[in-house]
């Protein structure tokens, strides 16, 4: 797997590079701003681009815009957007097109090596990785508070992990329960929220959950 890293902090570019190397991912280019990122993606055709939201020159949301542009021009490139603050609104914008091969994580998550590499792989494999913090913000703002109250605490935890883009296997290991138990919870959630039956396709499931919460 080949990746391009865009972050204006040299320190973090190198750090993330080491981290990806640890996970057996080859870094084919590191850049410090959005324009060079687009050039690097064009030249290297990577499988994955890891992008900081805030980059020169204006230090606003250059990374996010670049990500959206990459998705339009090179739809095969998986996108993992990192940010020092996660904003539910940015996540919604990023996911508005589709949730395939998209991740949006708090930059702090790089500290948990295994989990971060897991998220990177998930995104590169066509899945979704939404930061738990984003999910928390979405849950706090959702107008679906009443149906959500019908869920048990455990079901709510499963729902949050589903929204993050985790697979049943990942949910099971995170909550330290059996696969069967997770499947039962998922079915129960879908039933209680009147969602169409659980989709085999993981990213379609994420979208269904997020759309439900966001609408």
């Amino acid at each position, binding site marked *: 797997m080949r990746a391009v890293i865009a*972050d*204006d*902090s040299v*320190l*973090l570019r*190198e*750090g*993330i590079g*080491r*981290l990806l190397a*640890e996970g057996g991912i080859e870094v084919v280019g590191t850049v410090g701003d959005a324009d060079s990122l687009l050039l690097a993606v064009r030249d290297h055709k990577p499988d994955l681009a890891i992008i900081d939201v*805030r980059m020169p020159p204006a*230090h606003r949301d250059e990374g996010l815009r670049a990500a959206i542009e990459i998705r339009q021009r090179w739809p095969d490139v998986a996108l993992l957007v990192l940010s*020092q603050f996660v904003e539910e609104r940015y996540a919604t914008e990023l996911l508005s097109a589709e949730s395939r091969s998209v991740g949006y994580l708090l*930059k*702090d998550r*790089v*500290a*948990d*090596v*295994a989990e*971060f590499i897991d998220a990177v792989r998930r995104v590169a494999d066509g899945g979704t990785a939404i930061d738990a913090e984003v999910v928390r913000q979405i849950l706090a703002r959702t107008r679906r508070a009443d149906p959500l109250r019908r869920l048990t605490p455990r079901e709510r935890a499963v729902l949050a992990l589903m929204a993050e883009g985790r697979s049943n296997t990942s949910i099971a290991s995170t909550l330290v329960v059996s696969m069967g138990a997770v499947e039962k919870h998922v079915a129960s959630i879908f039933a209680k929220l009147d969602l169409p039956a659980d989709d085999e396709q993981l990213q379609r499931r994420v979208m269904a959950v997020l759309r439900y919460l966001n609408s």
Partner: protein
Amino acid sequence: MERATGSVVGQAPPSRLRLAARLSDGRVRNVREVRSALRIYVSRETGAAHLSLLLALVVGAFFAAATLVLLIVSLATAWIIGVGVAVRGGTLRLAARMAAFDRRRLAWFGASVESVPLPRREPHMSLWQSQQAWAGASWLWRLPAYQLLRLPVAAAMGFVAVSWWWAAIICFVLAAGGSKPSLLLAWQVGPVSPGPVGVLALVVTGVVALLAWPFVAVAMAGADVLLARWLLGPSRSRLLAAEVTRLGAARHLAVESAEAERRRIERDLHDGLQPQLVSLALDLGLAKARLDRDPEAARSMVERAHEGAKRATEDLRNLVRGIHPAVLDERGLDAALSALVAGCAVPVSVDVTLRQRPDAVLESAAYFVIAEAITNVTKHSGARTATVTVTGNGTLLRVVVEDDGHGGAHLEPGGGLAGLAARLASVDGILTVSSPPDGPTRIEAVMPCER
């Protein structure tokens, strides 16, 4: 030379002080006049007062006549569309000219009378629009009013002057035994033959009257000035309104500079510290992951993390100091400058002379002026040496930062210096930047201590 505000830079105390001075100026002047009483006989001021009064009377007659005619024509034509505006505007223009003459006359006498704001012709205005602006400048009606009121006042003063001298002369004439002075008032006194006491009394009265005359003349000139200040200068409410506008602008600048400061702190934390801490956590995470299977690699990662942690604490320290150095509160400006200067790559000499410790707000403003200037010296000036001079005499706090670099610093919107100018405006201070293309650069901030 570029100025942060329109005020006169340097000696002029900033506007709030000037306002106070202006409002109490009349009284201050009078006191001074009394104090200089003994010099009154030889001073240029006395002569100027006479000339000024004489001019007031002679020119005033013409001006009053002209004003009267203009006012009558204005009134008569007020109802004619177009002509009314033209004549009214013209009347006020001429009144402004006359007022300017009178201000010059008084300035010559040594009294300054502030000008009222006149309508200005902006580049985009046609001649007619400009005339309309003049016609609509209702506050200018004070100026013709002055001309009409001043003539009788000046005439009364002239009458006092003539009577005074005449009385003195008659005293001497009578004392000399002149029985029937051929002119005027003496008739009423009639032929007199005063005794020795009477003669003495007459002589003393005459001498006292002559000695007292300059006081009378200067007092009358003072009254003339007061009248002019009342009607030719901006009204008190207008002064206050201008001050309110200025304060509003200063407050806006203060809020803006606080906002910019917050953004700067956020940027410093976000771009400086946060990546370091994330990277530190990342290194430790990698080390943890490798601890069992590759202890050597883990050790080097821990070492890297250790270095990173030390660097981060150092940066945090600098950042906190940049927000507000604690020593500034505890020990004052002089103490706070030591560390600031130590961090500068260019050798800086510091000279702080303060009669008393300034207000904390001023200290802080002065500190940040110096900090920004020093940063610029390090980053942009190419200077070999720099000097920081702080002087405070209890009235003004002055900060000067000079370097021998290549100059070219300027106040651009959104730049560091503009931020300083805004911050200074919030304490009624003024920033002056002088930085010609070949240097040297001189940055001066002056703040009033009374608030």
